[in-house]
C-alpha cells in the first residue's frame, strides 16, 4: 500500500491506498468526493479535471500516490460559504450545462485557464477547452459562461 497525505479543498487527508489507485478514484471512493466524474479513463474527455496546486489536471491519469504532499481542489471546493464561484454562477445564468456530467471538469479547466489569461477572447476560450468534451451543449453556452465569468471576475478585482 502507498501512504498518501494530500490537502483536498483545504483539508488534509491521509490514507493508505493500493499503489495503482488513480487520483480520481481516491477522490471519489476514499474521500467520497463524487463531484469529479469519470467519462473515458483515457484522459480524452476531461470530465475528471481537478486542480493540482492550482493547475488543471486530469485526475484519471494521475496516481493518488503522485499527489502526496500536494494540494487538490475539486468542484466541491469551489463554492465559499454557500456562495457559488463566479464560474458556477455563470454556467447557471448562461445555460452552460445540460446533463451536467462534463460540467465539473469544464469549470475546473476554466478556473485554471482564467488564472493564466483573465480576459480571453472567444477563440482563446475555445482553444483552452481543447481537453474537455461536452456532448450536450455544442459548447456555445459553455464558452459564453466562461467569457461572462471572466468579465465579472475581472470587474470584481478592480
Amino acid at each position, binding site marked *: 500500500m502507498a501512504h498518501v497525505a494530500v490537502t483536498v479543498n483545504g483539508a488534509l487527508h491521509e490514507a493508505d491506498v*493500493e499503489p*495503482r489507485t488513480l487520483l480520481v*478514484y481516491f477522490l*471519489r*471512493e476514499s474521500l467520497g*468526493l*463524487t*463531484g*469529479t*466524474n*469519470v*467519462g*473515458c*479513463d*483515457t484522459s*480524452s*474527455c476531461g*470530465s475528471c479535471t481537478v486542480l493540482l496546486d492550482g493547475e488543471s489536471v486530469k485526475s484519471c491519469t494521475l496516481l493518488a500516490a503522485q499527489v502526496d504532499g500536494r494540494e487538490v481542489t*475539486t*468542484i*466541491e471546493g*469551489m*463554492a465559499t460559504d454557500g456562495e*457559488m464561484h463566479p464560474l*458556477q454562477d455563470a*454556467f*447557471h*445564468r448562461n*445555460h452552460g*450545462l*445540460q*446533463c*451536467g*456530467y*462534463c*460540467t*465539473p471538469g469544464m*469549470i475546473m479547466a476554466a478556473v485554471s485557464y482564467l488564472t493564466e489569461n483573465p480576459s480571453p477572447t*472567444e477563440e482563446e*476560450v*475555445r*482553444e483552452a*477547452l*481543447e*481537453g*474537455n*468534451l*461536452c*456532448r*450536450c*451543449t*455544442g*459548447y*456555445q*453556452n*459553455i*464558452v459564453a459562461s466562461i467569457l461572462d465569468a471572466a468579465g465579472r471576475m475581472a470587474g470584481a478585482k478592480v
Partner: protein
Amino acid sequence: MATTGNYVGSTVLRKEDPELLTGQASYVDNQSMPGMVWMALVRPPYVHARITGIDTAAAKAMPGVVGVYTAEDLELGALPFVWPITEDIKVPVHYPLAKDKIRFHGDAVAVVVAETRGLARDAAETVHAQVEELPAVTDLEAAMADGAPVIHEDLGTNVTVHWSHGGGGDQSVFESAPVIVEERYSQPRLIPNAIEPRGCLAWGVPAMGEYTLISATQIPHIVRATLGGTVGIPESKLRIVAPDVGGGFGSKLNVYAEEALALAMAKATGRPVKWIEDRQENYVATIHGRGVIHDCTLAGTEDGQILGLKFVEIADLGAYYQLLTPGIPELGGWVYMGPYDPQAYWYEFSGVLTNATPTDAYRGAGRPEATYVLERLVDAFARRIGMDPAEVRRKNLVPRFTEARPAISGLSVDSGDYHATFDRALEMVGYEDLRREQAERRDRGDVKQLGIGLCTYIEMCGLAPSNILGALRYAAGGWDACTVQCLPGGEVVLKIGTSPHGQGHATTWAQIAADALGVTPDDVRVLHGDTAVAPLGMDTYGSRSVSVGATALHLALEKIKEKARTLAAHELEVAEDDLEFANGTYTVKGAPDKARTIADLAASAWHAHAIPEGFEPNLEATAVFDPPNFTWPGGAHICVSEVDTETGAVEILRYVAVDDCGTVINPMIVEGQLHGGIAQGIAEALYEEAIYDDHGNLVTSLMTQYLVPGATEIPAMELDRTETPSTTNPLGVKGIGEAGTIAAPPAVVNSVVDALAHLGVTDVGKPATPERVWSAIRRAEGGAA
C-alpha cells in the same frame, strides 16, 4: 424575468443546475450501498467464434471474488426486443450472456462479482473462452452477399427483414419524368458518446423477491415492463430508478444485458451489485447509430419541380436486435418527402445482420438518415438542371398550413410554415452576397473555395399515437401520464412519466404548472425517473416529452382547476359559474373580496373538514394523454464553409438555423437543445465514423480514435425561430430534441460539395474528412482530364 402568470414562453434559469454545478448530482456511479460488490463482464477478444469452453477456475480462486457465472449457471431469458416490424421478420435470440457463439466484440460470456471495482476487472481478465474462430463480416454489403458468414445459423440468412412502405401516388414518374436523378449515399455507423457511460446498481430484499435497479437509462418504465421476463422478477416487484443521467442521445433508450445481469447477480449473491461501463466497453457494448446505404431516385422537371422521390435502403442491424433495432429505419420511412410535395413516393429497406455492435436509436433515429439523403438528392437535382438550390427548394416547399394536412407518405402533418423559416435563414445568412463571393472566389481560382449548404427539413416526433404504434407492430403505447398534487402548504408536486437526462424538464414542467396555478416555478417540485414515484409513464425519447408528457401535465392541471372550482364555489356559497379564475385565485364575479387561492383550496381539500358531499379529499389529479398524431417540427439550416482545395480541410464559417417547434415554453432550453443537436450533426458530417477492420475489429475503439469534436471544431451558431402551433396537442408544442441532428449533416455536407461543385465534385462522402475531400477533388480532376 417572468412575472406570475407568464412563465411559459420566457427564459427561466434551470432548477436542475445547483446540484450539477456543485458536485452533488446523483449519477449512478455516485451511489453506493453497504455490502456492495462490483460486477465486471468477460468480453473475449473475438468477433465471431463458436464457444467450446469457458475456464473460470482461476477467477473463482482469487481472493475477493464473490462469484463467476456463465450462461449455463444462470437461468436467464432472452433480452427484450419490442418491434417486430413485419409478420415474417426473423428475430435472433439474444441472451444476456452468449451461449453458443460470440457474434460481436461486445458479446460477454461470463460475469464476475468481486469485492472491489479493481478486483472484479482483474478477475474478469483471467477468464478465458476456448473457441473455434469463424470468419467475420462487418461490411454491410458483404454480409448480404452469397457465401457470407451467417451470424445466426438458425435464421439461415443475414438479411432478416424487409419492410416496404409501398408506393404513394403515380409511380410511373420514376420512368417517365423529364429529369431522373439517381444517387447512392452511404452513412457510416456512429457511436453516441454520452459523456456518462452506462452503469447500474441493483439490490433486493430476497425474502420478499423484491428488487430495485438504479440505472443510467432514459426509459425506467420500459425497462420495468420488459426486463422482468428476462430475470424472473415479476413487474410488480421490480422498481427501476433513473437518477441524474449524464446524457443519452438514444444510447440509453434501451434494455441492456448488463441491467439484467446486475439484477441476476443481486439475486445470486444477495448483495447490492454495481456495474459501471468504461469507455472502451461503451464503444462496443452500447448501441451504435446509422450504418445505412441508400439508392435514391428523384423524378423532376427541367424547371425544378420535384415529381417523385424513391429510396431503397439497406441497414446494418449489427449482431442482434436491441430493443428497437429494425424499427429505426422504418421511423424514417414517413419523412422522405421532407417539406416538399411530390406526386409519387417510394421507400423500402432491408435489414442486415453483421458481426458488429447492434444499431438502434441514435438522436433522430431514422429521420437524420432520411433527411440526409433527401437533401443531398435535392442539391444533386439542382446541379443537374442548373438551378440555384434555394430556388429549387422555394419551388417545392409546401405553403403554410395551420390545420393538419395529409402527406404523401401516408400520415398527416400537424402544421408548418416552411417558407417562413427558409426565407428568414436566407436573409440571416445573406445568401445573395455569399453567392457573389463564391463566384468571385471561383473566378479567381482561390485555393480556399466557399460553399453554401442548404437543408430544409421536417421531422416526425412526439412519439406517438398508440393506435399508429400498434399498426406498426410496436409492442407498447405512446401515451404519457402526470399526477399533480397541490400540497396544503401551497407547494405543488408533479409526478410525471417522462425521464430526462439533461433536457431541463424540471424547469420546463414547473413553468407550465406555475402559470396554471398562479405560483412560481420555485413552488413546483418535479418528480420523475422512478417507477415507484411516478409509476405511469413511457419515458423520454423521440422528442416526445413536451408534446406528450407536458400535455398530460396540462390536462392534469385542468382537472385540478375544475376540482378547485367546485370547492371554491362550495366555500364561497355561489354557483361555479359565478366564479372567475386568474393568477391561481377564484373570485366571485363582482365581489373581489370573496376569493380563494389554489393554496387555500389545497389546504381545505387536505383537512377535508368541510368539503362538499362526494368530493374526494386532496387537491390531486392524474391525466394520461395519448396524442392523436405525431408532431412535425420543421425548419431551415444553412452552413457556410470554406474548403481548402489543396488539403481538403473544411472550416465552417457560419451556421444559421431557423427552426419551428411550435409553441416554445423556455427559449433558453430550446436554443440549448438546438446547439447540442447541431453540434452532433456537424460531428456526423465532418468527424465521426465507427470503423471496423477486415477482421471485424473496431478500429475506432477509443475516444482518441473516434473524433468527438471539441470547442474549436464547433462554430458559434446563429439561431432564430418561428412558432407555428401544433394541432396535435392543446399546448401547440412540437419538440426540439432532435432537430439539430436531423438538419445539420446535409447542410454541412451540401456546403462542402457546393464549394467544389465547379470542379466537378458531386459527393465527398460522410464524414467529409480532409482525406475524403482531397480524394474527391483529385478524382474530379482526373475525370476532367
